[in-house]
């Protein structure tokens, strides 16, 4: 599932196993639990969190096949609602985390997996493998409003946002740096994590107050926080699931 270890002055959260790290309730709970443990650490000087993953995938998004592995439409629909709700909770946890965050992407990050990466303050991506991919258009799904708010926060160029969302572009590290989505490109998987650790150690030296850092980040990402309360792609205004359309 996921592990949390300390290396020097920084923490490394790793999604373990060689699978697609699909964001199902189990993995989401596991990640959120690790983040809760982090909050009990001293916040000044704040440490730094690095999130990474083993294998070919950072995360391939929601566990759609788990959601659909039932004959009941209403169970499918409530599974989507559950994953969306937990994912939004995770986004909120990351945005309010009292320390800088770095995603060290060493494999594919698609749809909710890409959103998960973009919830971090910095994204360092492996040069030779893996892409960022907002896959929804290709699989016939609508991108949730909070994903768009996150993209608006993290990708300044409207054309880049359009390419990500309206062409379901598969972005390699080089393309992602060019579009301003990714901060740095690392070599191999190990080198990418090393680069993240170096960046983390540099930030640790600044001796920031984690609570103040978090409050500032929440202001910067205020528009994303505003959209986290409701996901129109999995539920209707009255709280019912979108069973019939799926």
């Amino acid at each position, binding site marked *: 599932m996921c592990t949390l270890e300390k290396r020097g002055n920084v923490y490394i959260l790793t999604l373990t196993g060689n699978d697609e790290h699909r964001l199902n309730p189990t993995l989401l709970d596991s990640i959120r639990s690790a983040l809760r443990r982090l909050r009990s650490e001293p916040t000044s000087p704040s440490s730094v969190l690095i999130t990474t993953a083993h294998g070919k995938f950072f995360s391939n998004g929601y566990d759609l096949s788990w959601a659909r592995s039932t004959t009941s439409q209403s169970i499918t629909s409530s599974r989507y609602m559950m994953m969306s709700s937990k994912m939004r909770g995770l986004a909120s946890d990351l945005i309010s985390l009292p320390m800088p965050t770095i995603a060290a992407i060493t494999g594919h990050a698609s749809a909710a997996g890409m959103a998960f990466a973009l919830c971090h303050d910095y994204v360092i991506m492996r040069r030779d493998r893996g892409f960022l991919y907002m896959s*929804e258009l290709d699989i016939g799904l*609508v991108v949730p409003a909070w994903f*768009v708010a996150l993209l608006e926060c993290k990708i300044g*160029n409207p054309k880049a946002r359009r390419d990500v969302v309206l*062409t379901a572009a598969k972005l390699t590290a080089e393309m992602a740096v060019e579009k301003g989505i990714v901060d740095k490109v690392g070599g191999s998987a190990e080198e990418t994590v090393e680069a993240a650790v170096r960046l983390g150690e540099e930030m640790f030296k600044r001796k920031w107050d984690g609570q103040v850092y978090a409050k500032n980040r929440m202001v910067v990402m205020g528009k994303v926080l505003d959209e986290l309360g409701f996901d129109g792609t999995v539920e209707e205004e009255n709280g019912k699931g979108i069973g019939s359309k799926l």
Partner: protein
Amino acid sequence: MCTLEKTDDNIFVLTLTGDDEHRLNPTLIGSILSALRDAKEQATSGSVLITTSRGKFFSNGFDLAWAQAAGSKPKAVERLHHMVELLKPVVAELISLPMPTIAAINGHAAAGGLILALSHDYVYMKRDRGVLYMSEVDIGLTIPDYFNVLLRAKIGSPSARRDVLLRGAKVRGDEAVSMGIVEGAHDNEERLREATMSHGKQLASRKWDGEVYKEIRKGLYPELCVVLGLGEAEVIAKL
């Protein structure tokens, strides 16, 4: 006025015909709206719209001469407001068109004409002729609210937006590319047509579901949807 044709590759081509300035008066606006609705009705998976024009102009904006022909200043202002209101559903129709859209600007695009172009997902222009120009500051008009929202949604750079709106910049092809306003500038009309058609075919080959594409596009421009009265993006999922 305007024509709508369909090529063999399922690409709709909307052409503003005639050698004039393609001023956006009620007649032309109505004609464009009608063509867009026809395209919408015939849309299938893999459809694409390309909008272009004949002559030296893509469109030089609202028909101010028609407004002034009303006789008095208040009546002229009324006619102008009328045209501003009439163009809004055209922009709304383009933002909610169930297929990718490309504008091939083969001449000048000013004010409402530039807005019409920027309502498309992708914009190409010529390198040798034609400028993009928000003329309002020069002729003494203020900018309608939905124009502003569209410009903010499509032009990312604050300095580019300032140059376009507050400096009345007349932006030529290469500059428009570097300002992030258009995808590309091509040497002449033929190259423009080839490039646009080629991009259109590439988009068509993805065979996206038009309804999903439309809802994702609406989700990408939420502020614009609000000002156009388009409501929330709907949920569709083909799972």
